[in-house]
């Protein structure tokens, strides 16, 4: 019912691009992972408005994202809310040819909440488990990964262009599945939601890792331009069972590459 009501407001461009996704949908418009065409159309109508008219996103280097086949988009976080991830995913649908769905991995608690459970799954964000990630990649999908995790979105305004510690799980996943890594730097998130401090004890009450406080208290975003910079694919070979030192070295290479894209991107702003 809710979906039918919302479907009336779907952006025709979004509808057309969703219809061109190279996924196998059943007669109900749902694919084998539960991704649903009607839900995608509504969800990306909202994100497309933010992408085109609010953040005025510019995507650079889209040719580095493979048109087909498995790949991992690995990016940086900045800003108290992960608009960076949402804009990268929107770029994949609106500006990539042919359009693709970027699958992010979601927090388990989002899957336990009514409505959130439906939407998070129908737009392609499965619970963050290695098994789900491997299966999506083996199905030749595009995975969106932020190895900084919540540490990244908790960055303060002054640290917006820096990178915090990267987890290493994504690298073992890339090696195990033989997936190329596309480094992607997002600039603008930190300016849109400038965090001056984080509240941790209050956040615990609602089960969130932190609560970002902006100069206007609430983490509502400013209409700041976002720049997305996609780097050349990085290929690593291995099995995913390598020693930590080897993995950490590879992770360092990806982190350096993203730091380089951020630095180069700042010159252009």
């Amino acid at each position, binding site marked *: 019912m809710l979906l039918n009501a919302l479907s009336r407001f779907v952006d025709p461009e979004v509808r057309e691009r969703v219809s061109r996704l190279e996924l*196998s949908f*059943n*007669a*109900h418009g*749902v*694919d*084998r*992972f*539960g991704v*649903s065409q009607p839900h995608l159309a509504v969800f990306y109508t909202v994100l497309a408005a933010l992408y085109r008219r609010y953040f005025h996103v510019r995507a650079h280097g889209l040719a580095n994202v493979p048109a087909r086949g498995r790949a991992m988009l690995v990016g940086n976080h900045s800003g108290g809310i992960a608009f960076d991830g949402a804009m990268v995913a929107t770029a994949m649908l609106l500006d990539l040819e042919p359009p693709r769905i970027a699958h992010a991995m979601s927090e*388990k*608690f989002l*899957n*336990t*909440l*009514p*409505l*959130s*459970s*439906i939407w998070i799954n*129908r737009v392609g964000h*499965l*619970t963050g*488990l290695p*098994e*789900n990630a491997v*299966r999506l990649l083996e199905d030749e999908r595009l995975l969106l990964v932020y190895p900084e995790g919540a540490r990244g979105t908790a960055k303060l305004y002054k640290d917006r262009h820096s990178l915090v510690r990267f987890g290493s799980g994504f690298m073992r996943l890339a090696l195990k599945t033989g997936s190329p890594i596309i480094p992607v730097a997002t600039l603008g998130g930190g300016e849109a939601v400038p965090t001056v401090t984080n509240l941790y004890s209050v956040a615990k009450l609602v089960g969130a890792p932190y609560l970002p406080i902006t100069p206007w208290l609430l983490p509502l975003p400013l209409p700041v331009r976002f720049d997305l910079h996609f780097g050349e694919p990085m290929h690593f070979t291995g099995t995913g069972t390598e020693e930590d030192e080897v993995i950490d070295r590879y992770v360092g290479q990806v982190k350096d590459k993203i730091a380089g894209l951020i630095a180069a991107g700042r010159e252009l702003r």
Partner: protein
Amino acid sequence: MRVLIPGIAGALGQRVALRLRDAGHAVVGIDVRPWPSAPQGLEVHAVDIRKRAAEDVFRRFRPECVVHLATVTHLRSVSDEQLRVNLGGTRAVFDHAVTYGVKQVVFVGRHTFYGAAADSPLYHTEEEPPLEVARFPELADLVAADLFAGSTLWRHPEIDTAVLRLVYTLGPSHHGTLGGYLSRPRVPTVLGFDPLFHFMSEDDAARAIVASVERRIRGVFNVAGPPPATLSGIIRSAGRREVPIPEPLFRWVLGRFGLVRLPNGAVDHLKFPVVVDARAFQKATGFAFEHDVDEAIRLFRAGDV
């Protein structure tokens, strides 16, 4: 081949029996439920698999293969007696199989073995352990039966045991877990949740079971047909009306207002998906489904009165 089918009178048992008979096998069945329309010459013994009389059938018929279909999964309310039938019956089947030299046993279990939880992988493989059994006692008995059947692979290597974890089945009989759940015009769901449901037509399920007999597979296999569909989509296609109920009220509302009664543990199965990876089975048997999601639902609707 001489094939004995405990649980022959169920919708699936009847189909498997007819297919095996048509393929030239000698088929005998055991079931406490009647099969009034059983074709002539097809012997059905109305005995409880756990009772002595069932052993007599093994001794007289000397089956070479047993297709054990006398298991149930409970997305509906059941008695204590039904709670025990899976493990008790399965143990009896394997005991008699060992005693009377059966060469091949196909245990037909359910994919609900894996449990439904917010943090479980979307697609389950055969290597995974069962989850969330503690919250669904009705399922614990099925899990125990499945694991017991699987242990026969090393306890009795002389028997080719196949443990099948079959997705829900739908067909004109309206039998089975999903069929029972969808049987009434109004179908209760948990408000704000719409899990993927994995199911196949009864015909496809019967063909898969027959394939496992004829290919004489050994091991534990997930069995599925087309990719899963959303519960709301299934309800709509089945011509039913979805009645979303807020979770705190769910248990109170069930069994009233013309809604089906469900056990407490089933709530998670209406919130989270149980979906399986059936590639190993397809590889071992060459099985390919014939009925897609809509065709399976159409066959189900053909049974509406």
